[in-house]
């Protein structure tokens, strides 16, 4: 919790000296609601995932905003099983440069993550008792850009790198001789503390619903 004031102080100092009137499209006190579509890449299994979610943004200062989000991401593990991820968290957006309709930013934040891996079952084989799941925490950071189509509405694209901290899911996707895959969820050993990473590409549609101050 101590990091947040330091973060604001740090970027506030960097921002000091820039023009105070940063952007007519972004003003402190703005509250916006948005919907997002997320692609997850380069994760544990190197298979892409597709996610849907929502977010709201609260602009604290002209140069600093916060984003509060939730995502539901699902992955097909090469036909051998399914991985579902739920992310719920928050990020801080820093706008380093004064621009107009096109606005770039740096983003960093934290989220809680639920992951569930389910091996493939068939009409002849039930493997649901091999399903594994865990809660963990993650931090994420990256870059993004808003494109304002009107003073209220923007399209946003961001790229973030996410690091999962804490207990990882103990499973392995094994390639078989016929190029098919088998998902092995190993319950024999205790899951280890490890860092799991992936890249998130997010496209969101955001609408400003209120000017709170």
């Amino acid at each position, binding site marked *: 919790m101590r990091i947040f004031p330091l973060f604001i102080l740090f970027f506030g100092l960097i921002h000091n000296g820039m023009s105070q009137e940063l952007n007519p499209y972004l003003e402190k006190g703005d509250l916006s*609601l948005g*919907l*997002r*579509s997320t692609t997850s890449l380069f994760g544990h299994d190197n298979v892409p995932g*597709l*996610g*849907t*979610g*929502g977010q709201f943004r609260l602009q604290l200062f002209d140069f600093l905003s916060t984003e509060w989000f939730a995502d*539901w*991401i*699902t*992955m*097909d593990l090469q*036909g051998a099983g*399914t991985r*579902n991820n739920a992310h719920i968290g928050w990020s801080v957006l820093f706008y380093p440069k004064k621009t107009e309709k096109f606005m770039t930013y740096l983003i960093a934040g934290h989220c809680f993550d639920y992951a569930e891996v*389910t091996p*493939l*079952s*068939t*009409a*002849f*084989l*039930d*493997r*649901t008792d091999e*399903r594994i799941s865990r809660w963990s925490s993650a931090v994420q950071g990256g870059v993004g850009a808003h494109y304002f*189509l*009107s*003073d*209220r*509405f923007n*399209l946003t694209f961001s790229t973030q790198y996410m690091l999962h901290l804490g207990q990882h899911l103990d499973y392995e996707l094994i390639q078989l001789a016929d190029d098919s895959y088998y998902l092995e969820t190993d319950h024999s050993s205790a899951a280890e503390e490890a860092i799991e990473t992936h890249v998130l590409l997010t*496209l969101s*549609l955001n*609408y400003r*619903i*209120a*000017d709170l101050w």
Partner: protein
Amino acid sequence: MVLALILGVFAGNVNAQENETAPDKIKIKTALSFSAGLLTENTQTIQLHGYIGVRPKQGRIELRGDGFYFVNSVGDRPRFTINHQLYAGAFYRFSDAQIQPYVGFQPGIAYAQSSEYGRFNEASNAVQYKKTINPVGSVTGGLDFFAEKLFFMFIETRYIFGKHKADSYPVFLDEWRFSFGLGFHF
């Protein structure tokens, strides 16, 4: 769709002091249609399609929520028994004339059940087909035709992408859909 309504209410009421989105300058559209879909392997689907959209009368951006109720599918490989979908997103209108072309993007969710791939349940000694919610997205293009004061017609097509993932084999949700319907605008 619920979110689009909430957005519309907020846009109309929270910041009513801003002329652009004062309640009397908000345009609301709601429409209903049957939607036909094309899947691979010579398979067609039919859905009931409804939506509600909200935009400033002078604006080009419309926020819109869509719902598809899966009715049936026919052809060589009808692969779902359930495939209901909800979308919410934004559309850009190229004109304010009587005929208005538009394009849009909407993230969404699909509540689906495979009719092909299930898992054997030892307890019930039967094959079960799990219903799951999976993310989908769609890009849409279409035309609105405003002929009357309150009524309008629309025709649109959308490409849906996503994958149904449950506890058995995954199934693509990718589909081309075509809707032709009637609606009210206020």
